[in-house]
C-alpha cells in the first residue's frame, strides 16, 4: 500500500475525534490492546467509528459479531425480513426461537448481549435507491455482504460518491472473495463487474463455516482501515478455496472507462 493510501486510512482515525477509553474498556479489550501497531490508539479509533453492515446474513452477521466484540463504536445494520429456517445453517446472529421474527431485532439483541458498549442501530430494510445515500452517509465504512448485485452496485456508487471505504465480501460453496475499495485509490466494484454477472442467483450453495470465515475477514479489513493497522486489500482480491485451504491474492485493475469511478482518477 502506498503512502497516500496509508494517509487515507489513518484519516479515519483522526486523533481529534477519537474518544478516550474508560478503565472498564481497557479491561475488556486487554488482549487486543497488546497487538503491535494497534494499541490504545487503534482501540480509540474503533470506538469512534460507525460501520454499516448490509446485510446481516451469514457473512454480514459474522462481520458484525467480530466488530462488536472488537469494540466498534456504532454498528448500523440493514436487512429486511424475518428469520427463516433456511437461515440457520450460517446466520449466527439468528436462532431457532426467533423464526418468523425480524432478523435485525435478533441481531441487535445478540450483539448487545455480546458487547453492551456498542451502539447498534437497525433498519428492517434492504439497500435500495431510496435509502442507500442516507445509510452510507451515516457510516465511516461500509461492509457489503448483500447477496444481490443490484444492492452491491448501489452501495458501490454511494460509497464512491461519498468517498467512503467499502469492504466487499463474497462466497460460493467453499470459496471466498474479499477486497477493500477506497474511492480514488484503485478499482471499485463496477470496475470489476461492469454489469450484472450472468447466471447469479440470490440463493446459492454454501457452508456456514465459509460465511463465518468471510465475515471475519471482512471485519478484519474494516478494523485495519479504521485503525491504520496493517495493509488492507486495496487493489487486491483475496481468493480462498477451503477445499484445499488455498489462499492467494490477485492484483486488480482499475477500469479507465468505469462509469462509477473514472472521474476520481
Amino acid at each position, binding site marked *: 500500500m502506498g503512502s497516500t493510501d496509508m494517509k487515507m486510512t489513518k484519516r479515519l482515525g483522526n486523533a481529534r475525534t477519537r474518544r478516550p477509553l474508560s478503565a472498564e474498556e481497557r479491561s475488556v479489550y486487554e488482549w487486543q490492546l497488546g497487538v503491535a501497531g494497534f494499541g490504545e490508539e487503534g482501540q480509540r479509533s474503533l470506538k469512534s467509528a460507525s460501520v454499516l453492515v448490509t*446485510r446481516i*446474513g*451469514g*457473512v*454480514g452477521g459474522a462481520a458484525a459479531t467480530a466488530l462488536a466484540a472488537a469494540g466498534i463504536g456504532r454498528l448500523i445494520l440493514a436487512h429486511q425480513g424475518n428469520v427463516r429456517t433456511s437461515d440457520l445453517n*450460517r446466520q449466527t446472529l439468528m436462532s431457532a426461537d426467533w423464526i418468523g421474527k425480524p432478523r435485525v431485532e435478533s441481531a441487535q439483541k445478540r450483539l448487545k448481549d455480546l458487547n453492551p458498549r456498542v451502539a447498534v442501530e437497525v433498519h428492517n430494510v434492504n439497500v435500495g435507491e431510496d435509502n442507500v445515500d442516507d445509510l452510507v452517509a451515516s457510516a465511516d465504512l461500509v461492509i*457489503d*455482504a*448483500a*447477496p*444481490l*448485485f443490484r444492492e*452491491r452496485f448501489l452501495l458501490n456508487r454511494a460509497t464512491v460518491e461519498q468517498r467512503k471505504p467499502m469492504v466487499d*465480501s*463474497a*462466497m*460460493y*460453496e467453499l*470459496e*471466498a*472473495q474479499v477486497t477493500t475499495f477506497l474511492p480514488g485509490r484503485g478499482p471499485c466494484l463496477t470496475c*470489476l*463487474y*461492469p*454489469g*450484472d*454477472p*450472468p*447466471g*447469479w442467483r*440470490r*440463493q*446459492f450453495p*454454501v457452508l456456514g463455516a465459509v*460465511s463465518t470465515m*468471510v465475515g471475519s475477514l471482512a471485519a478484519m479489513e474494516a478494523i485495519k482501515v479504521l485503525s491504520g493497522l496493517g495493509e488492507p486489500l486495496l487493489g487486491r*482480491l483475496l*481468493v480462498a*478455496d477451503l*477445499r484445499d485451504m488455498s489462499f*492467494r*491474492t*490477485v*492484483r*486488480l*485493475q482499475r477500469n479507465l472507462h468505469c462509469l462509477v469511478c473514472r472521474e476520481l482518477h
Partner: protein
Amino acid sequence: MKVTIRYSAQARVATGLSSEVVELDEPTSVHDLVVRLSRQHGSAFRRLALDANGCPHPSLLVAIGDDQVRSGDHRKIAPGETITIITPMSGG
C-alpha cells in the same frame, strides 16, 4: 504450447473441473482463449463466459498468474502461464 486453466466457483461447477492443461497451437489472446473454452465446455459455461454477442463477458474476471486482465484482453498468453477464470460471487 501448454497453459494451465484454473476454474473457480460457478466456472468450476459449469465445467466440472478445478483445472486443466490446454494445448495451444498458436499464440492466443485472453479473448480468444475464453471463446475457445466456451466452445469446449458447453452451454452452462458459455452462459457464464460470453455475452449476447459471443464475446467474453466483461463481468468475468480472468487472472494471468496473480494479475487480473480483462476477459476481452487481446494480450497474448505466454507458454506455461496459469490462467484463472474467476466468476463473481456475493454475500448471503
